[in-house]
Structure formats: C-alpha cells, structure tokens
C-alpha cells in the first residue's frame, strides 16, 4: 500500500531538485526509455532509510563531480507501481530492489547498483561507485 503522498513529497522533490525527471506512468516511462540514445540513469526511489541516507545523497554528489548522464529519470517504488513495473521491464535481467540505479548507454544497461550495494554504506562510497561509472560511460569521446 502506498504511503501518503504528503510523506513522500519531499523525497520526490529531492530528486527533482537534483535534475531528475519523475516518471509516474507507463507512457512516461516508455517516452524516456523506449528509444534511447546516449546515456540515461534510472533511479528507483524508495521510502527506506538507505534511499534517504545513502542513495539520494550519493546521486547528488556524483552529479556534482565529473561527467554525468545525458538524462536522469526516477520512478518511485511502492508509490507509482505501474511506472516502476514498466521501468523494470527495461532492465529485466536484474532482480527488483529499491533503491537501485541502472545506467543505460544507447539502450543497454552498462552499470547497475543494487540495494545491497547501498545499504549500510556511506553516501560517499556509493557516490564513488556512480561517479566511476559516469567517467567510464558518460564522458565525451576523445578526438
């Protein structure tokens, strides 16, 4: 059962504040993930402590470092259930967990961070994992 919207509103706003686009419906998800070019990070948001204490601060920190994805989008587990289910179809090889993050390049998943890689870790450790992936996959090709 979803939490009251009033309770999750700050968690949604935290994502939007850092530049993420919220996807709340199946058409929203298909519009962003259906025919991808470039790099996209999908952040599966959650009400749990490891989203608040680890995953969201980590993403904010990683986005303030070097290269970053062309797009950052987010779906909210337990809240926007149809959108989350649809998003997970795009990374169906990976078991559902939240929070979690999938980095796509030209439609392929090139890096995935599971909940088990976030829980109990300091945000800077998770941020390093993300920033390393951004440097590897999101940096402009050298000429």
């Amino acid at each position: 059962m979803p939490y009251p919207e009033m309770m999750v509103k700050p968690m949604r706003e935290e994502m939007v504040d850092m530049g993420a686009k919220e996807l709340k419906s199946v058409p929203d998800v298909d519009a962003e993930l259906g025919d991808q070019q470039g790099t996209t990070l999908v952040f599966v948001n959650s009400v749990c402590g490891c989203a608040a204490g680890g995953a969201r601060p980590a993403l904010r920190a990683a986005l303030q470092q070097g290269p970053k994805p062309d797009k950052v989008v987010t779906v909210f587990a337990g809240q926007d259930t149809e959108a989350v289910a649809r998003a997970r179809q795009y990374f169906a090889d990976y078991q559902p967990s939240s929070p979690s993050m999938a980095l796509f390049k030209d439609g392929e998943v090139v890096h995935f961070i599971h909940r088990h890689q976030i829980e109990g870790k300091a945000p800077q450790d998770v941020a390093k994992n993300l920033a390393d992936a951004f440097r590897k996959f999101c940096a402009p090709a050298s000429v």
Partner: protein
Amino acid sequence: MSGHVFHPGHEELHGITVVVSGRSGRTYVGRYHEQTPKGTLLHDVAVHDPAGGQSREEFLARTLKFGVRADQKHLVLADEEIGEIRRLVEFE
C-alpha cells in the same frame, strides 16, 4: 563488524543483505531482519542447494551481478543451521 545502524533500535545487521552459510550445505542470501526465539528471520531470501548442480561460487557471483532472486518472502533459520553470517558485499 563496522557499519552504521540506519534503523535505530534494531540489531546492527537489520536491513542488510547477508549470506548465511548453513551447516546443511545450503546457502541463504536475504535481508536480515532480527533474531527471534525460533531463529534468525530473513526477508526476500534466495536459497542455494548444492544438490541443484550450480556451485555456491556461481550462485554468489550471479547474485552479486543481478541481485537477489528471492525464492521465499520470509525465512526463519534455526540456530543449529547457521554456520556463518556475512554481508553479501563482502563477497564482491
């Protein structure tokens, strides 16, 4: 074991995905919840049985890459079955 408790009032491993090496030879990967009078309660648990053919190493490698494929929503492991409990990320 280091690490911060992010759900105050619970045990240190509460909410953490752990690997339990069972004395039966089975391996369990799930989210640690708490000790109960009947044993240790895990949520969303993948169970590896060596009789299934896949090695424990393959099972853990696949779990690390693709996540925990939960066979059971909840599982209580009796103390007699528990050999060792370690965090899944220690196997990376």
